[in-house]
C-alpha cells in the first residue's frame, strides 16, 4: 500500500547565509530581474514564478562545504557565459564539472555563494528557480527507504552501483574527465598498492515535480542534533492531505517501513498549522505544505 498523500510541486528551498545583503545580490544576479525580493527580519525571500528561495541569516551557516549538496538554478543558456564572466570578475571561482545523470553529462558551471552554498547554473527554460537539488547521505539505503518507499518518490536513474570502475572513472583519476568531485572517491588498495577510484553510489529521484539527486557521503559530516526537526537547509513541497493525516502515516505504516531495516527508528516530524516538518536520515530538512 502506498502513502495516503501525494507530494506535489517543489515550492522552494531555504538556505543559510552569513550576510543577507551579499546573498541577495548574488542570487539576484543569477536569477535576474524577474526575481522579486521580500525582506523580513533575519531572512529574505526571492520569489520567481511558482518557487521561492529563502535566505536565512546565521552567524555560522550550515553550507555545502565539500559535500555533494548543491542547488541547480535554471539560467537561460544565452545568459550562462556572460554570467560566469561577471561572477569570475567579482572574485567567485567557477568549477566546470559534469555529473553522471544522463541530463548532466556535459560540463556545467558550479559556483559558491558568498557563504559557501554550492550553486549549479543549469541551462534551460523554467518559470521557477530550481532545476534540481542534490543531497548527501551517510546511509543511502535508509534514504531510499524514506524517499521512495515512504514518501513515494520514483527512481529516475542510478549510478555507481557496481564494482566495475570503467574507463570514465580511470579518466577522472588521470585528470582527463571533469566529473564533479562528489561523484567519485578514491581509496588506497592494499592489493594493488595504488589509489583506486570508484563512482560514488548515486540515486536520482522524481519527487512530486522535482528532481532530486542523492549521493552517498564520502566522509562523516556533523549533522544537526537528532531532535531538531525544523531547520535549514530545507526543501518545501506541497502536499494534498492535511498534516494530521500525514503525521498519522509517519507514525504508522511509514514507521513500519523504516523499522523493517532500521529497528526502532522513527520518522521524526512536527506539525505547525498547515505544515508538517520532517528530518531525513541525512539531516536534511523537508517541509510539506498542505494546500501550498
Amino acid at each position: 500500500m502506498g502513502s495516503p498523500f501525494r507530494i506535489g510541486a517543489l515550492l522552494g528551498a531555504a538556505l543559510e547565509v552569513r550576510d543577507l545583503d551579499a546573498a541577495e545580490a548574488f542570487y539576484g544576479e543569477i536569477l535576474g530581474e524577474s526575481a522579486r525580493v521580500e525582506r523580513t527580519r533575519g531572512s529574505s525571500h526571492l520569489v520567481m514564478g511558482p518557487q521561492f528561495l529563502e535566505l536565512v541569516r546565521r552567524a555560522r551557516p550550515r553550507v555545502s562545504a565539500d559535500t555533494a549538496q548543491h542547488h541547480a538554478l535554471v539560467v537561460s543558456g544565452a545568459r550562462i557565459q556572460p554570467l560566469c564572466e561577471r561572477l569570475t570578475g567579482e572574485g567567485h571561482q567557477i568549477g566546470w564539472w559534469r555529473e553522471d545523470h544522463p541530463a548532466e553529462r556535459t560540463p556545467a558551471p558550479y559556483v559558491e555563494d558568498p557563504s559557501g552554498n554550492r550553486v549549479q547554473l543549469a541551462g534551460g527554460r523554467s518559470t521557477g528557480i530550481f532545476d534540481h537539488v542534490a543531497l548527501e547521505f551517510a546511509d543511502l539505503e535508509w534514504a531510499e527507504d524514506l524517499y521512495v518507499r515512504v514518501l513515494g518518490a520514483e527512481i529516475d536513474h542510478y549510478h555507481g552501483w557496481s564494482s566495475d570502475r570503467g574507463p570514465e572513472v580511470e579518466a577522472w583519476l588521470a585528470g582527463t574527465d571533469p566529473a564533479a568531485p562528489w561523484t567519485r572517491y578514491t581509496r588506497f588498495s592494499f592489493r594493488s598498492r595504488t589509489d583506486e577510484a570508484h563512482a560514488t553510489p548515486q540515486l536520482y529521484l522524481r519527487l512530486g515535480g522535482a528532481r532530486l539527486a542523492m549521493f552517498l557521503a564520502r566522509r562523516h559530516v556533523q549533522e544537526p542534533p537528532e531532535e531538531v526537526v525544523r531547520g535549514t537547509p530545507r526543501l518545501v513541497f506541497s502536499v494534498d492531505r492535511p498534516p494530521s493525516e500525514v503525521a498519522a502515516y509517519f507514525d504508522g505504516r511509514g514507521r513500519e517501513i523504516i523499522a523493517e531495516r532500521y529497528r526502532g527508528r522513527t520518522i521524526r516530524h512536527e506539525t505547525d498549522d498547515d505544515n508538517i516538518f520532517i528530518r531525513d536520515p541525512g539531516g536534511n530538512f523537508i517541509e510539506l505544505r498542505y494546500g501550498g
Partner: protein
Amino acid sequence: MAFAENFSHSGIGCSSDVREGEAFYVDTLNAQPHSWIGLNVDDLMHARGPHPCVIAGDFLFVTFPQAGPARDRSGERPRGIGGARHAFAVPKERFPQFVDRLRELETDFEGPVAHPESGPLGESVYFTDPVGNHFEVCWRRDEDHQYHPVIVGGD
C-alpha cells in the same frame, strides 16, 4: 546430526549492475530484499561497492557485482555443465505457477524435466541469472516427509 548443521547462504556474483541483479532474484524467485552492504559512509572505504542481500525461502544470498562481461552461455544448457546450481523446492501444486512466472518474465529455461519415479524429485525447471549462475526449481515427491527442522541459529 551433521557437524555442519545447515546450508546457510551463498555469496554469489549476480550482475555488473547489482540493482539489476537484485531485481532478478526478487522477480523470479520472489526473494525478499533484506539489506544492502556498502551503502553507508563507513562501508564505502572498505566494502567492494554496494551489494544487496536477498532471502529466498530461508536461504540467504549475499550478492556481489560481477566484474567483466557476462558469461557467454550460447550453446550451454541452463542446468549447467558440471557446475554447481542452487535448487529450490516449491509445493507440487504451485510448480505450474512458477513455470508460468518464468514465461511471463521471458526467462529462458529448460524443462519441466520429469525425474525418475523412484527418486525424491518430481519435476524441475532450470534457468540462469543475468551472469549465468545456475538455478533449479523443483517439486519433491517426498514433500510430505518430515525432515530435520532447519536451525538457523542458537541451540
